[in-house]
């Protein structure tokens, strides 16, 4: 190797202070500029519910809500999220926002190893806020960035479908 790496490495070492509102709570942490949001959530903030399956935006295991929208935490540097409001599976669970989805996934065994599940739930939650009564085709389409090796997907589709129905019946809409 050449000797010019020292300055390079110094840059890498430098950390930046970032602040987020994570799951409703203000947090600050020191991150390296190269650190992704998923690493920051999992390591610095110990929120290990957000998973990393591919680190290139292909599998959906790392989905979190950022300012109310589902984003891939592996495709974003932590510094880019400075000032954002982030909700992870832990926060969405505590707030009860996805309690019906979780209950339906549980009832139908729409998970096996559970590694894809937080990302699936975040995506399903997003879908149902966009379209109240998606067709099965639309559900499959919306989940097409969420890889699951265990389930075969059908129970997941069924669960989301059932929640969409239940939610819209409650609201009186169709």
């Amino acid at each position, binding site marked *: *190797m050449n000797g010019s790496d020292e300055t390079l490495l110094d840059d890498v070492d430098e950390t930046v202070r970032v602040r987020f509102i994570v799951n409703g709570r203000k947090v600050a942490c020191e991150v390296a500029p190269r650190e992704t949001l998923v690493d920051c959530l999992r390591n610095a903030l110990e*929120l290990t519910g957000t998973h990393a399956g591919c680190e*290139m935006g292909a599998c959906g295991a790392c989905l979190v809500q950022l300012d109310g929208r589902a984003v891939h935490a592996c495709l974003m540097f932590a510094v880019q999220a400075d000032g954002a409001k982030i909700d992870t599976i832990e926060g969405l669970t505590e707030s009860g926002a996805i309690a019906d989805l979780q209950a339906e996934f*549980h009832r139908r*065994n729409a998970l096996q*190893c559970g590694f894809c599940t937080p990302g699936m739930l975040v995506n399903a939650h997003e879908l149902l806020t966009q379209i109240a009564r998606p067709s099965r085709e639309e559900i499959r389409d919306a989940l097409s960035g969420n890889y699951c090796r265990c389930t*075969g997907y059908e129970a997941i589709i069924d669960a989301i479908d059932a929640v969409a129905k239940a939610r819209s019946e409650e609201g009186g809409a169709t």
Partner: protein
Amino acid sequence: MSAPLTSLDRPNSYIGRSVPRPNAKRLLAGRGRYISDIRLPRMLYAAFLRSPYAHAKIVAINVEQAGALEGVHLVAVGADLAKICTPWIGTLDHFKGMTSAPQLPLPLDRVVWAGQAVVAVVADSRAIAEDALELIEIDYEELPLVVDIDGARDPGGPLVNPDSVNNVCFRSQLDSGAVDEAFAHAAHVVEEELSFGRHTAVTLEPRAIVADYDPAVGALTVHHATQTPYQFQDLYSRHYGIPEARVRVIATDIGGSFGMKLHVYHEDMAVVGLSILLGRPVKYVADRIESFVSDIHARDHRVHARMALDAKGEILAMDVVDLTAIGAFSTYPRTSVVEGNQVIRLMGAPYRFKNYRAALEVIFQNKVQTSQYRAVGHPIACAVTERLVDMAAAKLGLDPFAIRARNVIADDAYPQTSPTGYRFEALSHQVCLKRLHEMMDYDTLRAEQAELRKRGIHRGIGIAAFVEITNPSPAFYGVGGARISSQDGAILSLTPSGEVRCLISVTEQGQGTEAIISQIVADQLGVAQEHVKVITGDTEVTPHGGATWACRGAGIGGETALQATRALKRNILEIAALILQEQPSSLDIIDGEVVDAVTRNQRMPISEIARIAYFRSDTLPPGTQAQLTVSHHFAPQGYPFAFTNGIQGCSLEVDVETGFIKVLKHFIVEDCGRVINPMLVDEQLRGGIVQGLGAALFEECRYSETGQLVNGSLADYLVPMPMEMPDIVIGHVETPTADTELGAKGVGEAGTAAASACVLNAVNDALVPFDATINSIPITPTKVLKALKRF
């Protein structure tokens, strides 16, 4: 089998009930505790520098700069770990003549596949460790290499292992006799050569390990994302010379495994060594590219097969040659020849014929190892057999259902021994075939197909019958000298407050092991399921056993739990009888209450028995020692395997302009014996089928001529996603095995076993009007267009 097991109407009858998994709630809340989540005090992180060449001599390694980087604790090369770790060899004694070179965590002087780990760095963070990798210099001298099957078999070609005379790992032959005569007298012969690409497990959580060696007490704790903690306890103990009782392997939540997470990987062995060298916890989690280049791959077979039939369409004989290339080594400790061995033994399994001959050749090449992955060998044996059966049907002008109905072993003809040497206790091909025909609404599908064909829409219908190997006995690995258990163990306690704790050796990777074990315990003891806690995956806590592989969780683990529970119940009732001054036989337990066996009147809660036994033993008759913890082991006896069977059907559409295939609907009728939780069985089937469909249509590890894996990312290696997958219709037939009280057989591989065979037959069915055939898997659009001569 006693009647109460199936009566779902009595309290606490859980066997046969679709109850949700208690542990799934944690995972849904993001509270899983996967190995990749684990962080220990003083923990360091490992990263590996990998070989860019598929075959090269290591001339020199310079790690000086890397070692000097701030935050780096250790840079280790092959020789450093070879000092403390003994080499391993991936052979089994019962595969006579099998060879494989010794392996070490990191190579000493030669790399044999592109992606092989060469140098390890341990640092304060993974990022620093990766920075250090960039400062390592290795001089390689490239060596000639072999990539494909033909190149590897070329007598004058390069050798993967220069110490051997050729690249043959293993050769085997089966011959039941009179095969040539059968072919000579056959009215019809069909023949095909089929090839199967390499694919890999792609578990969503990559391999992960945290090794924690404590030099003060000479004890090693390994948090390991594995299916088989006991196997690794033994291996770490033997290869690092640590007494077995001082090695603890913990496998908590595992993000998918499918057979991939039970082999010895070089990095995992290295991480244990690195922790020993440093006396600190060391963590390694493969990233996705590392998974693709270092996880085991599977399949990679080329099979030439012939089938002889008489004038009526009855199968007379099969003659098969299977060539398979397994990479540079045979995996340890299960070996890489098990797949080929199962391919040649499962050929023709559903059918009644006498004459069979097979040759297997397993060869080395400069690629990562192949080995056991879900449905080992089944998809290949099934695809070859079922393709030949369909070809024969076409030749004879028979419908695919009709030719199978004519040839499957009759449901009343068991026990049977296959010409390949397998003994079948009781299978149900005839009833499954009939059920599938109804479920698919076959005649309507055929009519619709004919109608659409006229309009240029090309649909195909494919069916494939299968036999699955489950509940393996010691005949699987034990006889070959591998220290892999076929028995399982359970320790069951009534706690002082009257709840039940079950420590069991079968492990959980999402199949629902813990759920079905708690169902069996609750059912057999007569308590509510929520009062049963099941603990798995910790060698220090749970008794030794085979754990979860080859579909043995329900059949062997479940039977272990059943027998342990019956023993605990006897003990509880003995104490209850002393207290109540009754005969134990006149008492029973329902809903946590001891009751009169005849009148069902409540006598006392079992919590009261526990209280008295633990805290007031002074009130029990002199000499009474209450045994409210029982330990029980169970090893399968009788048939060496519990074979299951079933049949799958597929309806798909081929776009003859683009070559794209859309699976419209998939069907399976399956017989896994006693079903403990129908919902979990269905989900195993669906998950398995989707893995099989992935293999059939998308998944292939593609290599360049220089042995580079060219599609090692989730963007390039296609996996089935929700949009491409169909809804899957499931039917059940139950033929319990009489070898156990529970009667359960395995089900995890049934879906994968026949899915690609089904798709292969369906695509070929769709292409009938074009006189085009497909004979390789995966069936990509390019292959379809090539077959149609449009590309």
